[in-house]
């Protein structure tokens, strides 16, 4: 789960203590993985058929191949036709994390249980229950992902292949067929604010809503999807392991759309997509201001697959959020200064991945979170802009057709996450007075080494 932490959309000015940022930064190294050997058992396929790096998840996301994207769109229902397989997998991740400031730690950072597989030719799903290390040998268990699908395949429209599906899921964009939205690829900009579609932004809908979308794929190239979401009651969020402080609020008039063109040329793949999410948000509930929020974005991606010896994946997404706030408020330090009634937030993500022999790889990401200035909402600098980079290298020894072990998989990775701008500043990001200790963006940098096993 990349960039889980440094988002705090400031409805009210909230100073950012360094310890808070550092504690949350530890979560950057958690896997966010979606490697599911149960799917490999179900289909007879290798992990490498669906994932460029033979092991999905972790920093850099699942890295789905076109075949993996089709498996997802097909509702996780493909099979080798050889009996029913148990649709259960597990993953354990041990992580050594070394933040630029603060103590290094080594622990079992995450344990995951997946219920993932097909029920029939038309019904399948993906459910992930995640136990995150929270310190002192304690773990917090949450229901991270739900994506239950019904699909009608082998249909014909105008003589062309046509697929019609329904997804019931708990994160807008998790079911993304292009794997370009942050909820599906787990790569998102970090910062003090973020769009609704940024799965790691604070008070984001991700994992705390339930919704349904209807989607269609025409001629294997043209994709369309519409749907709606509603937030779960705070009591249910609590039962599912979530801190209610991250409640996305009471949502109404929520609409989601996704349109895309994708072209699979076997040795190359290209996609371009449009996405939108709009809602009216009451936060806090029961009398809080009602904000009108609309995300609109586009994304493009390219893959060179060749004969799978060298795989290159490039992806860029650009999402602009328009906010019309339901209230304004005065600055605590200057009662004559009021927050603005409208604002924009802008998330951009550029990632490049290279994988050799589906085993050795490097991921480089450039993550930008920007927004319109607001001296009251974005204290102390009035500017939420954040720039971060991700660099990750990994080795996946198994998961290929000729692998010695076929019942499980292993991934070793080293990741460096660095910040060059935070709170709109490249140094002294909390505007410490002269003589006081300063915090720089680089103080949030973190290096980690992780080992994940899945079976």
């Amino acid at each position: 789960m990349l960039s889980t932490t440094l988002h705090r959309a400031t409805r009210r000015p909230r100073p950012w203590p360094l310890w808070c940022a550092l504690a949350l930064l530890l979560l950057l190294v958690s896997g966010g993985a979606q490697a599911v050997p149960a799917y490999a058992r179900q289909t007879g396929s290798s992990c490498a058929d669906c994932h460029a790096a033979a092991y999905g998840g972790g920093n850099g996301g699942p890295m789905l191949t076109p075949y993996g994207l089709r498996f997802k769109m097909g509702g996780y229902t493909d099979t080798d036709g050889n009996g029913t397989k148990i649709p259960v997998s597990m993953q354990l991740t041990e992580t050594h994390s070394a933040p630029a400031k603060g103590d290094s730690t080594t622990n079992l950072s995450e344990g995951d249980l997946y219920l993932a597989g097909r029920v029939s030719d038309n019904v399948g799903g993906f459910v992930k229950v995640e136990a995150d290390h929270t310190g002192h040998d304690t773990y917090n268990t949450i229901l991270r992902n739900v994506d239950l699908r019904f699909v009608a395949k082998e249909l014909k429209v105008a003589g062309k292949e046509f697929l019609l599906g329904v997804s019931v899921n708990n994160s807008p964009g998790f079911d993304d067929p292009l794997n370009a939205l942050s909820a599906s690829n787990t790569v998102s900009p970090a910062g003090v604010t973020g769009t609704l579609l940024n799965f790691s932004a604070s008070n984001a809908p991700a994992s705390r809503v339930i919704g349904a979308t209807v989607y269609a794929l025409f001629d294997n190239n043209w994709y369309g999807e519409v749907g709606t979401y509603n937030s779960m009651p705070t009591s249910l969020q609590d039962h599912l392991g979530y801190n209610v402080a991250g409640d996305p609020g009471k949502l109404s008039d929520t609409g989601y759309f996704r349109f895309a063109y994708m072209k699979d040329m076997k040795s190359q793949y290209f996609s371009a997509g449009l996405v939108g999410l709009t809602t009216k948000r009451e936060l806090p509930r029961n009398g809080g201001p009602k904000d009108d929020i609309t995300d609109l974005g586009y994304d493009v991606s390219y893959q060179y697959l060749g004969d799978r010896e060298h795989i290159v994946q490039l992806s860029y997404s650009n999402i602009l959020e328009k906010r019309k706030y339901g209230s304004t408020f005065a600055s605590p330090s200057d009662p004559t200064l009021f927050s603005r009634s409208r604002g924009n937030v802008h998330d951009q993500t550029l990632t490049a991945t290279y994988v050799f022999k589906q085993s050795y790889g490097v991921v480089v990401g450039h993550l930008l979170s920007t927004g319109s200035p607001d001296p009251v909402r974005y204290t102390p600098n009035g500017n939420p802009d954040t720039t971060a980079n991700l660099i990750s290298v990994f080795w996946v020894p198994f998961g290929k057709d000729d692998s010695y072990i076929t019942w499980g998989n292993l991934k070793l990775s080293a990741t460096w996450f660095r910040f060059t701008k935070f709170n709109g500043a490249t140094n002294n990001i909390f505007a410490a007075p002269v003589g006081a200790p300063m915090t720089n963006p680089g103080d949030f940098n973190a290096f980690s080494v992780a080992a994940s096993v899945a079976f």
Partner: protein
Amino acid sequence: MRVTKLILGISAAVLVLGAMLAPPLALAGDASAGADVFKKECSECHTTKEGRNKKGPSLFGIVGRKAASIPDFNYSDALRARTDWVWTADKLHWYLSQPVKQANPGTKMKYDGLDDPKALDDLITYLGTNH
């Protein structure tokens, strides 16, 4: 004279034996290049490992094999009905050079066909080496 007849006789015998032992109807493609074609075009749904089925059946020994003949694979009724089909090199060439749903309506296989004759020859030659 007798030696010449002996040499001719041995040569003929070698040719006949060679023809008998050669992969059935193998084409004159490049097996190494065919292995790359297999990775690009086929490997997501098939392996060439014996007994390892994916979404599609194992292609181990496919050249010369009777259609729909792997016991533990769930073939489509459309392919099971082709009781007279044998996957000779020529048959594979015909089948794979067009959309397979056109070659065999009702099949579960999804493939738009390979329109590069050289690549197809290479592929089938490669498949012929997997025995």
